[in-house]
């Protein structure tokens, strides 16, 4: 199943210039309770009309019902229950939306609730289209009128009047059609402006706004986990506040298939790539059982309305409890076994300042895209202490998130979703390490609906040493 995925911004695509129903599928990864879900909100063509919601579950997701609610202006409009099975895969439900504008989708597993803001587009007729169609229709009518007058009137010259009207109408129509390609689109509700029913249904009403830069101030991140203890189930609470006003930031866009990409690194070098659920304006939560005590590195990648991706870094302190540190990772590339799969890591031109290509070879070409990408690579470093990876990563000069793209298939519009297991077996990343030293890297790819995390340690020599 392929999704017509264009600009995946929350309510992203601006009104199509040809007046076609705008909108695309939105894919949002959500770590709801113990489940890792990918929620696909399919595009809506008509209002009132159906809204199809697909939920992709991953290996290890418990079976059970998931209640999905769609609400607008604070009241619930429709509700359905998606029965999630024990087998990982795609589960669907259909909701109903009755008006265009800003909407909210709530996912409720009985214990946790997460909400996803999304946009239901309206059918928009741009002004030039009205001029073009109206002009041609008027020209046709004037032509008939001119013929009728010429045939039936004694004074044939009277026919010149409707004929002149036809020329004028044609001029209007042709001008409208010629200007259409050069007409700038109005500011996009959702990705640029706070969406309202008015600016979704009539975006051209605001086309004259004197705004050129839609970007907003940076955010502040507060990470809170009251009484976090090793081996004990906990909840990380994130508070996002506007860096200029201190108000909660409730304008996150879906960026790389999630509202917030939260990457957490433990003291012994474990990595989690989680997608906290929104519980209120600027408030996000995610469940995590920290397996060891110490300082964890926490980073949040997100995009605000108006554009620009931000990286917010912080730490999380975990108190002593049932300790289960990860096994040490031997430095350098080479084969290793991750979750029952043999993964072979090779590194080309490892030297500071020059592009380094890291390739992971998986057993078969059956990798699935995760978050719209074939693979993810997190890099932190340089660092030295293998028992304080989290604390060092939290302040390391390099904190990178590298993507491996899914190959482009000629003629295919959009990107494949997670149900396509046809990629790999090689996943490669190219990254330029700024400084020599010991780096921690984690490769992530999805196989059999399970996201594998491949940890590795790379020693990057200075350029001169590597000079080959």
């Amino acid at each position, binding site marked *: 199943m392929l999704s017509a995925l264009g600009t995946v911004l929350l309510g992203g695509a601006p009104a199509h210039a040809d007046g076609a129903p705008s909108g695309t599928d939105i894919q949002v990864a959500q770590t709801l309770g113990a489940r890792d879900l990918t929620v696909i909100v399919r595009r809506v063509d008509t209002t009132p009309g159906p809204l199809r919601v697909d939920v992709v579950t991953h290996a290890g997701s418990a079976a059970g019902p998931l209640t999905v609610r769609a609400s607008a*202006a*604070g*009241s619930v409009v429709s509700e359905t229950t998606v029965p999630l099975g024990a087998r990982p895969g795609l589960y669907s439900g259909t909701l109903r939306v009755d008006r265009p504008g800003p909407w909210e989708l709530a996912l409720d597993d009985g214990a946790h609730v997460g909400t996803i803001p999304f946009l239901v587009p309206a059918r928009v*007729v741009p002004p030039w289209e*009205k001029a073009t169609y*109206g002009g041609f*229709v*008027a020209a046709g*009518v*004037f032509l*008939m*009128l001119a013929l*009728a*007058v010429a045939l*039936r*009137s*004694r004074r044939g010259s*009277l*026919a010149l*009047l*409707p004929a*002149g*009207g036809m020329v*004028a*109408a044609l001029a*209007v129509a042709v001008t409208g059609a010629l200007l259409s390609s050069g007409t700038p689109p109005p500011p996009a509700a959702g990705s640029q*402006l*706070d*969406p*309202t029913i*008015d*600016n979704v249904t*009539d975006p051209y*009403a*605001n086309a*004259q*706004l*004197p*705004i050129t*830069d*839609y*970007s*907003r*101030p940076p955010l502040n991140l507060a990470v809170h986990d009251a009484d976090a203890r090793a081996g004990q189930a906990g909840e990380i609470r994130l508070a996002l506040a*506007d*860096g*200029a*006003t*201190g*108000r909660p930031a*409730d*304008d996150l866009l879906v960026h790389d298939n999630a509202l917030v990409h939260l990457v957490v690194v433990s003291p012994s070098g474990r990595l989690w790539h989680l997608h906290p659920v929104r519980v209120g*304006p600027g408030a996000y939560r995610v469940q995590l059982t920290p397996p060891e005590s110490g300082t964890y590195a926490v980073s949040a990648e997100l995009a605000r*309305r*108006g554009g620009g991706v931000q990286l917010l870094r912080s730490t999380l302190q975990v108190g002593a409890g049932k300790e289960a540190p990860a096994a040490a990772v031997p430095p350098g590339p080479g084969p290793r076994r991750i979750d029952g799969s043999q993964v072979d890591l090779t590194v080309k031109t490892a030297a500071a300042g020059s592009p380094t290509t890291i390739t992971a070879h998986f057993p078969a070409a059956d990798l699935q895209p995760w978050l719209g990408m074939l693979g993810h690579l997190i890099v932190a470093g340089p660092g030295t202490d293998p028992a304080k990876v989290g604390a060092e990563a939290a302040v390391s000069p390099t904190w990178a998130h590298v993507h491996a793209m899914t190959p482009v298939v000629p003629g295919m519009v959009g990107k494949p979703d997670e149900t396509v297991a046809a990629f790999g077996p090689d996943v490669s990343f190219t990254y330029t390490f700024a400084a020599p030293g010991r780096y921690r890297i984690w490769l992530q790819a999805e196989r059999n609906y399970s996201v594998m995390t491949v940890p590795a340690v790379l020693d990057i020599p200075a350029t001169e040493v590597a000079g080959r």
Partner: protein
Amino acid sequence: MTVTETDATPVRRRPLVPIVVAALLVAAALAWLRWPGGTSGPTVTKTVAGAYTVQLSVDAPKLGTNTLAVDVADSGGKPVRLDEVTVEPVMPQMGHALTPVKATSDAPGRYLAADTVLPMSGQWELTVSLRGPAGAAQVVLPLLVK
């Protein structure tokens, strides 16, 4: 458009058909120009916050001093008497927050935040804070200032 004046002339002699055609033409042109018909009343935004249904209406939001009307009702649509209503304007693009304006009661369930200065055109976010018998609630409503 030139619709009305051009087709009016030839219809004098044979009234019925051309007059009907001309009338249809004028009606079609008017319908086309009016469609989908932008209504130019006050800007109204409505949402539900907890126990309250909040409606914000502003007559032609403009640069400078505006009067914001907040109508508060319960879920049944009955006006609610509140202890305090404040409106806090924020311009998210600029990261600019203004001093909250206290709204005064005008009629049952209707509160007016008079003399609210919005010193810049663009999109504003108005946080309406309510305190009343059914508890406190906060709601953020966008407002476009031209």
